């Protein structure tokens, strides 16, 4: 499946401050292109800058092909961008910030916003900042997900740690096809 941008892509989404920009930077071959700007609304409470258009990173694989990593703008008022970004994506990485006031609301919101995309592809969930706020636990997230009929991988991650982000993306790929093998 080719995306509208002519290549494969993985979409990173989630609320402001969940670590999308950082996660893409963790695994991208090139310094990610980011469109952060000074926050001027409710996001200022959580980040001094926030992504207003998109983040972009790239992973180059054997043979010179690339997998493109797109981060959606976290602010909901930019949700018109999400469909455009998601078109042609092979899967969704949803990052949630466990220190936000209602992470389950974020979970439901983003699952709803990407409902059609998830139906056609797969989703994995990374929960950040669990070292600061242990609750809700990973089990609590699974319980929430069951109520909407989903059972994806949910990992605690530190978006700055390449291994964490890599595992999350690997779980996305294996969710698409458990038969994938790496020689």
């Amino acid at each position: 499946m080719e995306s509208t941008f002519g290549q494969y892509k993985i979409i990173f989404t989630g609320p402001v401050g969940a670590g999308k920009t950082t996660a893409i930077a963790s695994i991208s071959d090139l310094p990610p292109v980011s469109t952060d700007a000074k926050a001027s609304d409710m996001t200022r409470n959580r980040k001094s800058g926030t992504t207003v258009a998109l983040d972009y990173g790239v992973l180059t694989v054997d043979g010179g092909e690339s997998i493109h990593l797109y981060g959606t703008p976290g602010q909901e008022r930019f949700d018109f961008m999400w469909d455009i970004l998601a078109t042609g994506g092979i899967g969704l990485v949803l990052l949630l910030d466990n220190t936000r006031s209602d992470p389950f609301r974020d979970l439901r919101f983003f699952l709803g916003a990407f409902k059609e995309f998830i139906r056609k592809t797969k989703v994995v969930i990374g929960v950040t900042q669990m070292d600061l706020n242990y609750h809700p636990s990973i089990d609590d997230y699974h319980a929430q997900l069951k109520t909407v009929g989903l059972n994806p991988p949910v990992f605690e991650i530190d978006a700055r740690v390449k291994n964490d982000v890599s595992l999350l993306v690997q779980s996305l790929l294996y969710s698409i096809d458990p038969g994938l093998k790496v020689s």
Partner: protein
Amino acid sequence: MTTDNRTGPLRIRVLGMDNRSLSTFKMFLQGPCQNLAVPVSGESAEISLVDLDGHGASELLANEQERFPDRPIIVTSLRSPGVSGAIHVAKPVKAAGMMAALKEARLMLSLKKSRPEIRQEEGGNLEAVKNPDKQDSPVVLDTRKPRIRRHQRRSTHQTAMLLDERAYSSYVGVVADINSKDPHQVEKAHYDKKKYLQAFVESAVKVARTRNRILQLNCGWKPIIIFPHSNEIWIEADDRQIRSFCVVPIHSILDLDLRGANENPRSIISPVSPDLVHADRDPKKFQSIDAFIWKIALWTSNGRVPDGIQLDQPVYLDRWPNLSRFVIVPHALRIAALLNNQSMTLMEVAETLEIRQQYVFSFFSAAMALGLAGQLPGQHQSAGACAPRIEPQRSGFLQKILHRLKVG
């Protein structure tokens, strides 16, 4: 901060209750709760209690946490509130639950007094947030709601240990695949977990979580202290030592009764004495309870499955383990993805993925120890188990991405 080295009642500030409820609560503390705490107002309080079901309770709690970030807070509510750093007492509040919470709060006061570095860590992170150069860092504090940082220990949140086939072999050893038709080989592929540390830890964690209190597991070796509120355990041992002890049958060493004599000094599970809680602890020895159980189940299993698991009966995986924080056996992600998609026998999993049985058995044993996996009842009808596949061209590209991610 107020001292806690005394035996008098804790001074508790109660928020979110009307006068009538507060009067009742005072009597509850004096009587059934054996005068462990006495309500006071304002600054003289050592701990706070917030009734989360009251009007505006969330705001009260946030304000209290902001005003007194070092103060232990007990919250009462009908539903689990998911409040970090607070001790939860579920309604209807019973004396035992409230007394346990008050003791826990007293221990927290003691810990804070003996570990002032917790405050320093907070200060450090606040500095990081103020530094605009670090604005992309996910360590962003919600300054509206300062938290008590019980989870600063990186050991509890460290990234997964990835074992490829070679590393796994040198770590655990190689176990030959078995013929499931050979009863002798099938028997050798099983182990009785009740004989090993694994079962004792699982039981002790269950008790600690049920009673909602810090407990110590005494199993004839190093004590293991279980902190259910923060989902942590502490043991003065490194992985190599723990791994060695995992395969030692300890049931015959100990005269144990897991049903639990609370105050019996010979009991396998005992409340943690204040002395032990106050002891200088190496923060690197704290581990996540789930990661610890997963790990000791892997080591105890050693490529086998617990007794009672039928190799020709399908098993299920209820949900993905939190693999980013666990020791990862070879092909764990593939096994999880496959079993999460469909139930099948353990032998079929190994065949479908074309991997050694010991990886599947180890993975399943660890997932089962955490209550994430189990065996389906009834006779298995061969479903022609196979992994869901996608078109070869796309599959080839996904494999390239995987290779790229794994190679780094």
